[in-house]
C-alpha cells in the first residue's frame, strides 16, 4: 500500500479517514467490524499499557485537528499522575465557517469515532467521555447515538471492554448554537450546564477541567486518527506527509468551486491544488476567478488569489500572515463578490459569537461589525480602515488581552483582509458619494 502522497501522482493516495464514505454498511457495528474495526481498540486495551498508547501517539506527533495543532500525546501526558477521576471530551461542536469535516466523519464512520474515543479514554484513564455535539447536528446525533447503542449492546462500551477490565461510558451532550462552546473551556462550562463562557487559563483542563477534574478535550478528527496509529504504528503515520505535519488530513473546500466537499490527503498539497485539482475542488465554476480564500476557517485570515501556492500544512500558513492551518477548511471568494460584503460577513460572525466576557472582544467585534456594515452600505470612510486595523491589532490572547482565542480569530480575519485588500477597499470608498461620509458620521457616532 502506498502511503506517502505524491502530489504529482494523485492516484497514489488511499483514503484512510474517509475510507468508509459511500460504504453505508460500515456505519453498522457489524459492517465496521467486518472491515477490521475495533481491532485497534482491542489491541490497545489488551496488549498495551496506557503509557504505551500515549508514547505511540506522542511518537507519531499527532497534532490536534481542531484548530490549535497541539500534539495529542503530549496533551494526554500533562494529566497529573495521582489523579483519581479523568474526563475525556470529544469536541464535535464544529461551528467554524466553513468547516464540515467532523460532520462527514460522524455521518459516515461513527464507529471510528467511538473506537478512537475508547483508545483515548484508555490512555487517559477516563471512565466517562462526553461527545459535545453542536445542537444543529440532528441527523448526526441519531447516527452516532445509534452506533453508541450498538457498541453498548455488544459490550464494546460499558464495563470491562474486551475483557481488559477497563470500562468507559460515552454520552453525547448536545450544545445550543454557540460557536464559543467549541473552545475547550467554553465546552466544559457548557457540559456543566452553564453558559459557554471560556475559563481563564491556567489552570488548563488537564489539571482542572470538567467538574474541576483533570480533563482532555480532543477533536473528532484527531481521535479518528488514533486507531490507525495503534494498528499500524507511529512510523507508518510519520511516513505520510511532510515532517511536522504528518498523518492523513481532511480538507474542506466550499464556495464557487465545481466540487465542493471534504477531501483527504497528506499535508503536502497546496491551496491551488485543493481548489483546482479534479480530485478535489475541480476548479472554479462558470469561469470565475479566485479573488480571495479563507483557507483554514475564517479565523485564520485570508489569502489573495496570488497566494495559492501556500501549502496546507501546519507551518506554511504563518508565512502568509495567517494565524495557522486552523481547520483546513477553505472557502473561495470569486471575483464577482465585493470584498466589502466579505469583511462585513466575517465581522458579523464574530460580533454575533463573542461571549462578551472580555471588553476588547465584546466591544471590538461589534465595533468592527458596525464599521464594516457601513463600509458595505457605501457609507465607509478612509479612517475606518485604519481604525479597523487598530482595533483588530489590539485584541486577542496573543497580545494578552482576552480569555480565549475567539478574539484572535476575529483579529486575524479582519486585519488580513484590511492588509491584503486595502487598495480595493480604498477604491470602493473613493467611488462613493462624498456626501455619504457626512451621513456616516452622523449615523454611527
Amino acid at each position, binding site marked *: 500500500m502506498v502511503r506517502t502522497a505524491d502530489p504529482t501522482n494523485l492516484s497514489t493516495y488511499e483514503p484512510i479517514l474517509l475510507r468508509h464514505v459511500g460504504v453505508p454498511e460500515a456505519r453498522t457495528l457489524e459492517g465496521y467490524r467486518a472491515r477490521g474495526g475495533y481491532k485497534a481498540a482491542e489491541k490497545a486495551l489488551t496488549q498495551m499499557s496506557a503509557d504505551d498508547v500515549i508514547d505511540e501517539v506522542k511518537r507519531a506527533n499527532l497534532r490536534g485537528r481542531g484548530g490549535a495543532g497541539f500534539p495529542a500525546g503530549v496533551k494526554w501526558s500533562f494529566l497529573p499522575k495521582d489523579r483519581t477521576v479523568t474526563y475525556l471530551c470529544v469536541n464535535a461542536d*464544529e*461551528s467554524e*465557517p*466553513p*468547516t*464540515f469535516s*467532523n*460532520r462527514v466523519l460522524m455521518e459516515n464512520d461513527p464507529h471510528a469515532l467511538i473506537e478512537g474515543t475508547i483508545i483515548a479514554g484508555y490512555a487517559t484513564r477516563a471512565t*466517562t467521555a462526553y461527545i459535545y455535539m*453542536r*445542537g*444543529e*447536528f*440532528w*441527523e448526526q*446525533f*441519531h*447516527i452516532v*447515538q*445509534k452506533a453508541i*447503542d450498538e457498541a453498548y449492546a455488544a459490550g464494546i462500551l460499558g464495563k470491562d471492554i474486551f475483557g481488559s477490565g477497563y470500562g468507559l*461510558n460515552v*454520552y453525547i*451532550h*448536545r*450544545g*445550543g*448554537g*454557540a*460557536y464559543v462552546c467549541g473552545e475547550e473551556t467554553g465546552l466544559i462550562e*457548557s*457540559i*456543566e*450546564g*452553564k*453558559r*459557554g463562557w471560556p475559563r481563564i487559563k491556567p489552570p488548563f483542563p488537564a489539571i482542572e477541567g470538567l*467538574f474541576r477534574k483533570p480533563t482532555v478535550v480532543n477533536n473528532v478528527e484527531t481521535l479518528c486518527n488514533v486507531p490507525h496509529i495503534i494498528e499500524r504504528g507511529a512510523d507508518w503515520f510519520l511516513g505520510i506527509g511532510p515532517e511536522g505535519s504528518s498523518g492523513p488530513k481532511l480538507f*474542506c473546500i*466550499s*464556495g*464557487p468551486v465545481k466540487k*465542493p*466537499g*471534504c477531501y483527504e490527503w497528506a499535508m503536502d498539497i497546496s491551496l491551488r491544488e485543493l481548489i483546482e485539482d479534479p480530485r478535489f475542488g475541480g476548479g472554479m465554476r462558470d469561469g470565475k476567478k479566485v479573488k480571495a480564500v*479563507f483557507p483554514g476557517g*475564517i479565523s485564520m485570515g485570508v489569502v489573495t488569489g496570488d497566494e495559492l501556492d501556500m501549502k496546507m500544512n501546519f507551518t506554511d500558513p504563518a508565512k502568509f500572515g495567517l494565524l495557522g492551518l486552523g481547520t483546513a*477548511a477553505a*472557502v*473561495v*471568494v*470569486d471575483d464577482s*463578490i465585493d470584498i466589502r*460584503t*466579505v469583511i462585513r*460577513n*466575517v465581522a*458579523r*460572525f464574530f460580533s454575533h*459569537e463573542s461571549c462578551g466576557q472580555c471588553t476588547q472582544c465584546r466591544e471590538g467585534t461589534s465595533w468592527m461589525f458596525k464599521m464594516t456594515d457601513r463600509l458595505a452600505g457605501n457609507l465607509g470612510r478612509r479612517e475606518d480602515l485604519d481604525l479597523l486595523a487598530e482595533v483588530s491589532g489590539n485584541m486577542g490572547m496573543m497580545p494578552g488581552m482576552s480569555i480565549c482565542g475567539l478574539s484572535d480569530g476575529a483579529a486575524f480575519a479582519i486585519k488580513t483582509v484590511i492588509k491584503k485588500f486595502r487598495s480595493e477597499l480604498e477604491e470602493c470608498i473613493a467611488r462613493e458619494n462624498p456626501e455619504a461620509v457626512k451621513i456616516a458620521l452622523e449615523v454611527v457616532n
Partner: protein
Amino acid sequence: MSWKVIDRNAAPDKAEAPVLTDALVEKIRVFLPRYETKRAALLPALHVVQDHFGYVSWQAMQELAELLEINASDVFDVVTFYTYFWTHPRGEKVVTVCRSTACAFMGADSVLDECKKVLGIGEHETTADGKFSLQTEECLATCDHAPCLYVNERCHKHVKPEDVRRIIEDPNNAKLDIERSTLFDGVKGA
C-alpha cells in the same frame, strides 16, 4: 431566541398547572446519572422541553430549576445564552437560512429575500397562522451544500431562489427519514 422583549405578565405561557408532564420529567431524569451534578443535565433537559413545546417557556424554566435544584435565574441565563433555544412560541416549522461565508458567497441573500416574500414575514418573525418562523443562522457545517435552507431539521441543499416556493409549499419539507434515538424525539413535524 432572545431578540424579542416579551411582556411576561401578558405572556401566553402562564400556567396554573405544571407544564412538565410526568412523561417529560421521566425523559429528563434519564440524563441525571450521566453527570456529577444535577445542573449538568440542564442542556439535555432544555432540548427535551423545546422538542416537545417548540420553545422553553418561563413556566418550564421555573419547573426545570426546581427539578435540577438550581435558581430559575440560572436557567434563564443559560436559555438566553444559547441561540438555539426559543423563549417564546415559534411556528410549527422553522425555516433557517444559513448566512455565513460559503452560503453567502453562493447567494444566500437572495434565498432569504425569496423566503421573506413567499412567507410574507421578516427575519425572526412568525406567520399569522403560526405555521412558519423565519430565521438566519451562522454556519451550520453543511457548507458543501451551500446555500443551505433548513426546514426544522432537514437540510435543503444548493437552494436557488426559484426553488424556495416549492420547498416551502411541500408538506414533506421537514421530513427526515432517519432512525431516531428515543433520547431526543426531535422537533415536532420533523
